[in-house]
């Protein structure tokens, strides 16, 4: 049963564990600091900087965030729905485009790929884009302005194409001989074989939707439609503005804790989406191709 491990494998594993553990700790540590920081007292952070174990415990920052709990939960709801709908739609269109670009039969794949890639290079800037969405599409204060623009990106499509290119041509060719149409090949054969790729792009899309705050900032005017990120950014921004010259004009008798607030915001925002990654990991399965060909 037990096979003697090769020397090389042992060496590989030792190096691997060391490197990965070190990096994982480097990545985890700041996060722990943020968690403890978010429940520290503001004054302590200002005086002594970040600490792993705070002397004084305080939930002021969270209170500032949850001062209107109804609003926060509403915002969570908006964000979650947008993330789910957007990721699924995005995944659908991205995978189709990626599939088409990966097909050798598609003679115009290079020009089309260029047309798509070109959009990452040049942009007309914020203003014409804003005019397109507000004036021509009429999406001011509409969820569509949050749902549609992040749906497709050249980067995702090209990555998708790359994942699908690694699927042996023999699979689609044999299916074609069996008389399968392109869409059937895409749906029945290519999609199941691209699960790791789909999971990756799906994760990227979900993260993009989850983290989006700029779109609501410029398009949404009704407060109940704010997604989570923007709602929290807004709290941070108003806290920050109290430190500037404009402050003279503002009601000066409310000042939320800025430093701890930053951290509490990070925790509240990251909260649910952190669990997405372990979920996505389940789709990183080796050896899909073999199963497909045999099955």
């Amino acid at each position, binding site marked *: 049963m037990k096979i003697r491990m090769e020397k090389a494998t042992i060496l590989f594993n030792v190096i691997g564990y060391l490197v990965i553990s070190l990096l994982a700790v480097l990545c985890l540590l700041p996060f722990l600091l943020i968690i403890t920081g978010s429940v520290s007292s503001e004054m302590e952070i200002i005086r002594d900087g970040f600490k792993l174990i705070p002397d004084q415990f305080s939930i002021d920052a969270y*209170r500032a965030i949850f*001062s209107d709990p109804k609003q926060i939960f509403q915002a969570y709801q908006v964000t979650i729905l947008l993330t789910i709908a957007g990721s699924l739609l995005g995944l659908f269109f991205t995978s189709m485009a990626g599939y088409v670009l990966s097909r050798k039969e598609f003679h115009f794949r290079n020009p089309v790929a260029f047309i798509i890639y070109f959009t990452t290079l040049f942009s007309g800037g914020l203003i014409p884009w804003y005019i397109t969405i507000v004036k021509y599409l*009429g999406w001011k204060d509409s969820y569509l302005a949050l749902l549609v623009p992040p749906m497709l990106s050249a980067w995702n499509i090209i990555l998708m194409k790359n994942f699908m290119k690694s699927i042996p041509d023999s699979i689609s060719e044999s299916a074609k001989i069996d008389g399968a149409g392109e869409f059937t090949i895409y749906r029945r054969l290519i999609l199941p074989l691209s699960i790791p790729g789909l999971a990756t792009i799906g994760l990227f899309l979900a993260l993009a939707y989850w983290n989006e705050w700029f779109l609501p900032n410029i398009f949404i*005017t009704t*407060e109940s439609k704010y997604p989570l990120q923007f709602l929290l950014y807004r709290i941070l921004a108003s806290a920050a503005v109290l430190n500037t*010259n404009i*402050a003279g004009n503002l009601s*000066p008798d*409310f000042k939320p804790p800025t430093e701890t607030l930053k951290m509490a915001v990070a925790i509240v925002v990251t909260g649910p989406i952190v669990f997405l990654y372990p979920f996505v990991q389940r789709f990183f399965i080796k050896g899909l191709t073999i199963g497909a060909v045999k099955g």
Partner: protein
Amino acid sequence: MNRKYARFFAIVLALTLFTALISACSKENKPAAESKAAESSGSETTPAESSSASDPAKPDISKKVELVWYLLGDSHADSPKVVEEWNKMLEKDLNTTVKLNFTTWTEWATKYNLLLTTGEKVDMIFASSWADYFKYAKQGAFLDLTDLLPTYAPQTWSTVPEQDWSEAKVDGKIFAVPATYPEFTPNGIVYREDWRKELNLPEVKDLDSIEAYMDGVKKSKSGVTPIGGSAWNEVSTLFKAITGFEAIGGDGNSVVVAKSYDNPRDIVAYPFTTEFADYAKRMKTWASKGFWSSSTLSVETAAGDLIKAGTGAVYWRNPAGAGGFITDLKKTNPEIEVAYFPFTRIQNYAVPNLSINNGMAIPKSSTNPERSLMVLDKLRNDPKYFNLMTYGFEGTHYSLNADGKTYVAPPKGVEVAQDWKKYDIAGWGWRYEPNMLKEEGSWDGFDKLTEEFKAISRPSIFQPVVLDYEPVKAEQAAVNQVFKQYGQPLMMGLVPDVDKALETYRKKLEGAGIDKVVAYVKEQAEAYYTERNIQ
């Protein structure tokens, strides 16, 4: 089988596209209609005017109108309810409703720019000298209100002082209704008075005593950095105060200054003056004494927070800001005693804010400027409207004292949660002093200071010079860049060798085209002084 599938798919796809297009088009219809209306009403402002001219006493309000207003800042959780009530009143009185939007503070400058540049329908927007009012007005983003005001905002037209109107003028035209709220916001510092007394340090009254104060604090209080956090504001405003240099236009960080209030035409770039060289050397000694930290240009923490934390002593504030800080400190750290020193005591004169420090303007894209002005007129002058929109619901958000001039928030006899927030929206644009209420229990030093400033008040002659740097924008951008890279570290005493750094700074400024910028500012200022008969 497969072909069928493909066809099915093609149909689905076609349908998706079709619906997408339809929804796009149908969505497009509304704003398109609106923008058409905008065009027509924009060009028809004259007919509307002439029709009212025939009956100037009563503007026509038979058509129901929905307006879009934007305020710069944040809303309050109860704003929707308050606005709803306001709309009920407006609908009754003016056959109008207003959709009140807030830019919030996130990237507000970007948003403000977008709203004005893209021609989106906005009927009124907060305008202010600190939000580029002069630039936008000069470049044509706002509607000229000069002729509309007497007809559609008659009360406002007669109550706003002539001087205030003139300060809001650009090229002789009025592009915004300034708030009527005389205010002084000179620079100054809040400092720990208890430490000064404890250490027997001299009264703070000039540069030397400030130095002595910080020196004493630094030496006796271990772990204290006198100006904790970012010290730039403290140091740069102090420089202007002791030299008497006055920034021209709204930008306080500009390197082009008038040498003194009495010689407004003597305009120079201050880095080339001996005053600056001396000051930079002095600041170098301050920095080496540890009055602020070497990372001061990177610190995000406000110096005031460090006073609260017990590790700072000095904090730059204007009187209103100082008032807020002191009131707050009384709550959080009652053991700390602070005092306020306005730099006007060094200069011996105070300049009031421009009226257009806060105001309301109508963008070009407005479809109903007349009605918007009527709403503003009502809002400013009718106490019922004013109190509702400025202070919220009486009884819920505040209660009025018997004198009718002061209020209490939270209202008397109402139990509120710990996180209760005073009703406060960005309503500075419609301030009208006679209607304003004073909050009970605010910092008592504030009124005394205002009296002090009024006694030494001199009219604002530098701020209203309109600078948009159009002919020299490349030079101005480069100068701005050099200022940040070489000027700021030099003034903060962070450079190893002041003389060398000064030489580099001056050379870089010359390379960036500072001469052209100075010439431009001179020209604009001269033109303004001549127009206003200022010597």
